[in-house]
Structures are given as structure tokens and as C-alpha cells.
């Protein structure tokens, strides 16, 4: 069945911008405040209030536009999108119409090594709505709802892709790479679970070789990268089955039920509202000069693609460079380490291995890692100069991660410095030889692997502190005597 059909996918991504103030008023953009504490007459939609555009939103939109190869509009304006909803105080959302700030861009997407180009139709600026807090456990049993307008007027960028995406994996890769870019630009927190990055997917399926798109379905409520991929996979499967069975497909909006792993119908497009888009007479159009755009272009930070190339030049394999640059926090961590210690591969090994694992299980990220770049570098230097063994290093790392103590301090406190004294190791070797005559005999009879056991015994005796290379060497010498 999968050979017969071609999925066609487009994504609509909303990114909450981390400006100081809201898009049309001076209320702060903040999370986790008491309900309705960051509200003023403007974002509260009171009669007589007027919106005034926060220019920083335009700056951020242009940044993102440039980073994804968009054309930046010379003229751009704002529209009212009209619909009644209790979390929308004026019952219209201020958004953009036919002249968005950015259009006609693209993103180069790497899906497991396969490179594709996904077109970006447009990026536009708009205001976020408030939130409804329902009483009771479920919406259907809820007695009443309360509106919290703290989020109302938080600036959003909506990034609309072309229907260029052909698989769920590619959609996920596109989203991850878009997220990385937004993070690199430092314009949003990009937390899907908190809603600062949101994604809706438009999915259709057509017979392979056809150039007529199938019936399009919009899927909402995708709250993680995994959900995006799983929902698209499910929806492709559902639509293909329908086509095989001859069941009709409807143009509709569906919601992803993460628990059940299915999409469910929300509303059909037949009943879709006419939003009566209308240019907002309170907001004069914005004219974007070349100088404005050039100024922003010059201030753009290094993007994931360039950064990855630079890391490869520093000696990292492409795989490592890709993983490390996929998140700005991770790449920044790497750079901070590399600045003090120029062993790129050693850094990436630890970052991608023990550190990532520890951060994941602790639910933390590279930005606020308890093991700072300085600490990791200290640890790596201990390993390099044989102060501690790689095995001991893991213990020290764990301790450092838990306590935040510097590796040097831990090594000193616990007396973990590697034993490199030939005399001391020699004594332990002698002890082990004496205690294990059978292994010695085996070794001398040609069973060379028996030395492994003896090395292990010496290490055990030294509580792991003996230098394994020296143990090996001394054992060999003594056994050959």
C-alpha cells in the first residue's frame, strides 16, 4: 500500500517570541503569573484602547525570514481576523493578510542523511489569544470557565511551509531544524510542551505519479516532536486505507489523541467560518527599508549549517557535528569547552554520551547543566594526563553531576588519583601473582587471555586507581620472568 501512494505534507508552525513586551502594548511577556495580572486596556480589549506595534517583533520576524532565505517585504500591514471566542477580548485577532513580513523562503532539511529543500510560503506576525481555564476534570463536565488574558497579545510568528514534505520523518526533521534556527536566533524559548512552539500539520495522500493533491486534512494538538511524527504517520495510514477501501475523505480539522495514538475529527471545513479579514485601521502599514534589513542581516548570529561546518573543521565527524549543532544550547556548550580545551572529539564523546544521558534522565538541558563546561574540561584533562582512569572519570562525573562539585575537588577528597608508581603497582602485581597460581600457569602455558583476569584482580586490589596500562605492562614483564 505504501508503494502506491504519495503523502503530501505542509506544516504551520507558531513560535511565541520572547520580546520584553507584548506585540501591541507595553505589558510584559511573562509566564506563570497570577491570572490577569499582565493585562492592560489594550490587550484586555477595552473600548477606546488602541494597538501600537512593538518594533522588536518586526526585527525578530526579519531575522527569522533572513535565516530561512525569505524575501523581506518592503510593505507589510496588519489585518483583523474576526471570530467570537471568549479567550479573545476584542473578538478579533490582529494578524497579517496578503502582505506578510516574509515570504518565499526555504529550509534545507536533512532527514537521516537525505537532503531535501522545503519551501516556506510565508512568515507572518500576529497576536496570541488568552487561555480558558475550565472548572472540573473534563471539558464536558465543566460547570464554568474562566478567562486568563495574560497570554493575550504575546507576539507570535506563524511559519507556513509549502506542501513539499513527503514523509512523517521529513516533517519531524523540518520542525527540528526550524526549531534549531529559531533557537540560534534567540527569539523564542521553543518549548513545545509549554506551547511556545506549536505545530499544525496539513496532510493529504495521492496516488504515486499523480499531480493532483488528495483531500487535505489539518491535524492539531501536536505537543511534541514525537507527536508530530506519530500523528502524521497515523494520518497517512488512515488516508491510504480510506483510499484503498473507497471510503470518502473529508476536508476537515482533526485532533491528535496522543494517548490513543489516533486522530479524531474536530470540525469539517464545510462549516468553516468566514473570518472577514480586514485591514486594521488602527495600525498604519510598516515600510521596511533596505537599510533596516541590512542592519539585521549583519547582526545575524552563526546559523546551524555554518556552525556544523565549523565543527567539522575542528575535527568532529559529521555525525557528531550534526547532533551537537541541532540545539543551540548544546553547540554553545561545546564551544565553551573547546575554547579551553582543543580536543573536539573527546568533548563531543562526553557530551553525546554521559552528559546527554545524565541531563535527559534529570530532565535538564545543556543550558543549565550542573556539570559546566569548565568542569567537563577539567575532567577531560585529568583523563588525558592519566591523573584518573576513564573508569574513575565516570564516577567523578556522576558525583560532579549530583553535587556540582568540581572534579578536582572530588578526586582530591576521595583520593582517586591514579596510581602510577611502579613500585606500588609492582607490589600489587606480586600479590596477585602469588594468589592466583592457576592463572599464572595458564598464561605461561600459552593461554594469553588469562592475563585479563589478572589485570582485573590488580585493578580491584587498587580500588580502580592503578594505571591499567602500567598494570598490564608490569604483569607481562613479571610473568615472562
Amino acid at each position, binding site marked *: 500500500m505504501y508503494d502506491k501512494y504519495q503523502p503530501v505534507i505542509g506544516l504551520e508552525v507558531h513560535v511565541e517570541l520572547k520580546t520584553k513586551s507584548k506585540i501591541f502594548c507595553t505589558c510584559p511577556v511573562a509566564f506563570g503569573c497570577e491570572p490577569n495580572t499582565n493585562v492592560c486596556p489594550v490587550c484586555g480589549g477595552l473600548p*477606546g484602547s488602541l494597538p*501600537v506595534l512593538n518594533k522588536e517583533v518586526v526585527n525578530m520576524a526579519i531575522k527569522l525570514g533572513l535565516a530561512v532565505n525569505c524575501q523581506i517585504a518592503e510593505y507589510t500591514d496588519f489585518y483583523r481576523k474576526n471570530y467570537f471566542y471568549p479567550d479573545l477580548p476584542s473578538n478579533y485577532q490582529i494578524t497579517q493578510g496578503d502582505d506578510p513580513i516574509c515570504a518565499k523562503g526555504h529550509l534545507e532539511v536533512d532527514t537521516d542523511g537525505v537532503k531535501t529543500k522545503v519551501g516556506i510560503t510565508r512568515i507572518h506576525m500576529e497576536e496570541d489569544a488568552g487561555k480558558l481555564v475550565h472548572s472540573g476534570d473534563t471539558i464536558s463536565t465543566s460547570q464554568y470557565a474562566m478567562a486568563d488574558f495574560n497570554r493575550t497579545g504575546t507576539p507570535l510568528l506563524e511559519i507556513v511551509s509549502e506542501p513539499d514534505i513527503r514523509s512523517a520523518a521529513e516533517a519531524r526533521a523540518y520542525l527540528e531544524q526550524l526549531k534549531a534556527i529559531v533557537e540560534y536566533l534567540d527569539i523564542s524559548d521553543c518549548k513545545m510542551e509549554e506551547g511556545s512552539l506549536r505545530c499544525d500539520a496539513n496532510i493529504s495522500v495521492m496516488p504515486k505519479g499523480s499531480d493532483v493533491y488528495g483531500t487535505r486534512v489539518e491535524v492539531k494538538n501536536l505537543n511534541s516532536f514525537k507527536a508530530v511524527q506519530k500523528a502524521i504517520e497515523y494520518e497517512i495510514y488512515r488516508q491510504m486505507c480510506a483510499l484503498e477501501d473507497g471510503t470518502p475523505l473529508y476536508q476537515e480539522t482533526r485532533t491528535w489523541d496522543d494517548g490513543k495514538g489516533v486522530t479524531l475529527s474536530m470540525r469539517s471545513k464545510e462549516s468553516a467560518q468566514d473570518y472577514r479579514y480586514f485591514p486594521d*485601521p488602527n495600525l498604519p502599514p510598516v515600510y521596511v527599508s533596505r537599510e533596516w534589513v541590512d542592519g539585521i542581516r549583519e547582526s545575524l548570529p552563526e546559523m546551524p549549517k555554518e556552525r556544523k561546518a565549523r565543527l567539522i573543521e575542528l575535527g568532529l565527524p559529521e555525525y557528531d557535528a550534526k547532533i551537537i549543532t541541532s540545539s543551540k544550547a548544546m553547540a554553545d556548550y561545546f564551544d565553551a569547552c573547546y575554547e579551553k580545551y582543543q580536543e573536539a572529539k573527546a568533548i563531543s564523546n562526553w557530551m553525546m554520551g554521559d552528559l546527554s544521558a545524565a541531563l535527559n534522565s534529570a530532565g535538564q538541558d545543556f543550558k543549565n547543566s550542573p556539570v559546566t563546561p569548565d568542569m567537563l574540561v577539567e575532567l577531560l584533562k585529568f583523563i588525558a594526563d592519566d591523573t584518573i582512569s576513564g573508569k574513575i572519570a565516570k564516577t567523578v562525573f556522576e558525583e560532579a553531576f549530583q553535587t556540582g562539585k568540581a572534579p578536582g575537588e572530588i578526586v582530591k577528597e576521595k583520593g582517586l588519583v591514579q596510581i602510577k608508581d611502579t613500585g606500588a603497582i609492582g607490589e600489587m602485581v606480586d600479590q596477585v601473582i602469588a594468589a592466583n597460581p592457576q592463572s599464572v600457569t595458564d598464561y605461561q602455558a600459552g593461554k594469553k587471555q588469562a592475563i585479563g583476569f589478572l589485570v582485573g584482580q590488580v585493578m580491584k586490589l587498587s580500588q580502580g586507581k592503578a594505571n591499567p596500562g602500567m598494570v598490564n605492562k608490569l604483569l607481562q614483564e613479571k610473568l615472562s620472568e
Partner: protein
Amino acid sequence: MVDLFRFTAHELADKIKEKEISCTELTQNVLDRMDAVEGGVHAYVNTVKEQALKEAAAADKKIAAGEQVGPLFGIPISLKDNMSSTDMPTTSCSRILSNFTAPYTATVVEKIRNAGTIVLGKTNMDEFAMGSSTITSYYGPTQNPWGKDLVPGGSSGGAAAAVAAGEAILSLGSDTGGSIRQPAAFCGVVGFKPTYGMVSRYGVHAMTCSLDQVGPITKDVRDCALAMNAIAGYDKKDATSANVPIPDFTANLNGDIKGMRIGVPSEYFPSKLHPGIREKVEGALKLLEEQGAIIEEVSLPASKYALSAYYIISPAEISLNISRLDGVSYGVREDVIDGDVYDMMAATRAKGLGKEVKSRVILGTHFLCIEQLKPYYHKALKVRTLVKRDFEEVFKKVDCIVGPTTLTTSFNFNSFPDSLTLRQNDLLLAGSNLAGNCAISLPCGIVDGLPVGLQIMGNAFDDEKVLRMAYCFEQVSGIKNLQPTFVEGGNA
């Protein structure tokens, strides 16, 4: 005690400065006048008498302390009921906002207060400024001080009636399609619609955002210029406010209009124009010519479509501006049993909004539907551009355009003209709003015992020029600070 309420603001301000009268005396005098005539006029929907007297007493202390005060210091004024302030409700004379006191103050209210004026209350208006007779107010109509059962005009009918009846020395109104000028003409006072962007709209309930403009209603042109000095200016809270240098609007009130060119558009003298008004306006033009102005005929050909454009653009914007009134977080909510939030919103709006508002919301919603957008709204915008271009062309040749403000004088509540005539009245008014220009109406005579308005229009940001010409006419004609006969007769 002299009837202080009969004087103009600048006369009274001089008396205060000279310590001839106190602010308390003046305020008390105007409040007494209010007590005497308000029962008949019904200019106000909310008053703050005690607050006003306290402010007057505080003002007297400042005078006694020898503080430097401005030219409107101590003057009792009124605000139209669509201007937000925290000291009393701001309802736009709608049931839906009848319990609503704004938590913030409109820029224009701050400014006029900073000039030292004393606010007495808020004046009656058509609901959300939709109407031209002040009869769509939730609080009932206002009576024109010039005659029994006569409308004061609208939508700033309460503001104009208050000034005419001596219940305020000056008023602030708002003008979307003539809502300052037409009631000023009907009530025999001066009403000025400044250039769009000249006065901040922040905090003033929107009717049609792209047309609304706040302006003064006064007893003479000098008062109007003084009020403009107080309220004009860039406001960063209003993105449509113009960041331009603000002139001293009183600087050229010297009666000198020699060499100024006046355009007279034939379109503004249609056959439906009341012959008495035509005569008065022609007389005014002759007077201005005698003062050295050069009169020439001009044409505004697009003006015949202007009204249609106005009646599409305005409802379209209204339909969206009114949508925020849903009962969710403020206003009078109609709770419903067994309904959801949409039922509540529908019930709130059904009961809270008046018929005129609803009909414009429905019309506007229709014009903005995807199928109607092109044939109506987009076409109306094109007409608006043409109207603007007409004015631009004419203003290349002339300094001001002069004509009547209205086709008729005030009419009786009980014998309303047909709606076509009513709308045609707006014909002479809406053009300035569509083009964003400035225009003044000032009395130019009495016909059948009722005042007639002379309209002087200027190009955008030529506000000062319009005031200069209006002042000249006022000086030469001697028609100013008229005392309305009906209220005077003690009939009101």
C-alpha cells in the same frame, strides 16, 4: 450675580485671571444653570458636581497662590460619553456599557484636564455615535435648546446642547461623519473637526477608526482655537496620530484673510438645500469676499459617491469595533440558563445593543463577507481615494472650501425627514472624514428662528487656516455666542 454661563471661555478665563470671579463662583453658576434647564434639555448622562466644585476650590487656591495658569484654567466643560475616564462611567450611551467605568483615561481627557478645565460630566450622544439626532441614546433624547421638540443633531447632540444652553462653557465631541459639525450647526455653536491624526483617539470609544476624530464644541472661534491648543498633538499610544509640529491655533486669529482663496463647490448646493440656508451661506461668502478673499467655483465630482462609500466603510469597521462587547469581561451581561458562552454573548448583545447599532453591525458584517468584499468594501475604498483626490486637487488651488454645514435646520422629533434627506445631510459632512481633512461649522445666521451653520473646510493639517477664516467671518458678521430662544423663554 451675573449669568457667567453666558460668557465665552476666554472671557471667563480672563475674569478668573484678573480675580474678578473665582473658579468656584463660575462652576457653581454653570451648575445652577444646569439645575435650571437640564430637566428640559437633557444634555448630560452623568455629572460629577461635587468633584467639580472640589476641583474649582483647588483651582482657586492656585490662583490665590499666584500660580501661572493657562488660558482655559477654571473653565467648566463637558465630555462626550465616549471618552474614557476613571471618575464616572463611560457608556457611549449604550445599555451594554451602562455599568462600565473605564480603568484608564483617554489622552484627550488628560490633555483638556491638564489645561486646568473642570469637567462637569458626560454628555448624551447617539449610541456608540451612530446617528445624527441623539435619539438612539439608551438614556433618551436630548432637546435642542432652540425650540420645543427639536433635535439637537448628533451624534454629539448633548455636547452641542450643553454649550448652547450654558450648561458647559465648552465641550469635547467626536466627529465620524459630521457628528461635531451637524449638532453645532443645529444648536448655533461652533464645532470643529480637526485633521485626522491631529488629536489622539486613545481612550475614545471607536465608531469608525479610520474616520473618527475628537474636536471642540464652543461658543466662539477663539474658544475653539484655545481648546485645540490644549488637545492637539502626537500621542505614542495612538499609532494613527500624526507626528507633526502643532501650531499655536490662536496665532493668526487677526481677521486678515486678504488674498486667501475660497473654493465653492456646486455639489454642496444641491436643490434640496433649504433656500434660507442658501441665502445665509451666500451672504457669508459675500462678506468674506469683502474682506479680501478670492472666491472661485470648484468641483468635487466624487462627492456624489462619497456618501455611499461612507455607508459601507463605516458599518464595516463598526461591525468589528462593536464585536468586543460580548459580556465576557465587562459590561452588562445577560446570563442564560442552559446555554453555553456563545448563547450568553448572543443574549448580551441582543439585549445590550440598540436597533441602530445592530443594523449597522449586520450591514457591516455583510459588506465584509468574502463574497461581498470586492463589490462593496473594496469599491468603497476606491471611492474614498477618489474623494481624497478631489479634495487634493481643489486644495492645490484654494485655501478653504466654503459651503453650508447642513441642508436643513433642526427638525422636529415628530416629523423626521425621510431617511434619504437625513443621509443627504451627511453628504456635506462625510467628505472631510473620508479625506481626513479638517472642517468647522459656525453659525452664520438665523432662519425661521433657528441657527444655520456655515462650513469651512481645509486641507489636512491646514486646521489653523480654517480657524483663521472662521474667526474673520465671526468678527465681521458679529454672529457668535448666540443665546438660544427656547431655553431663554424658560420653556425647557
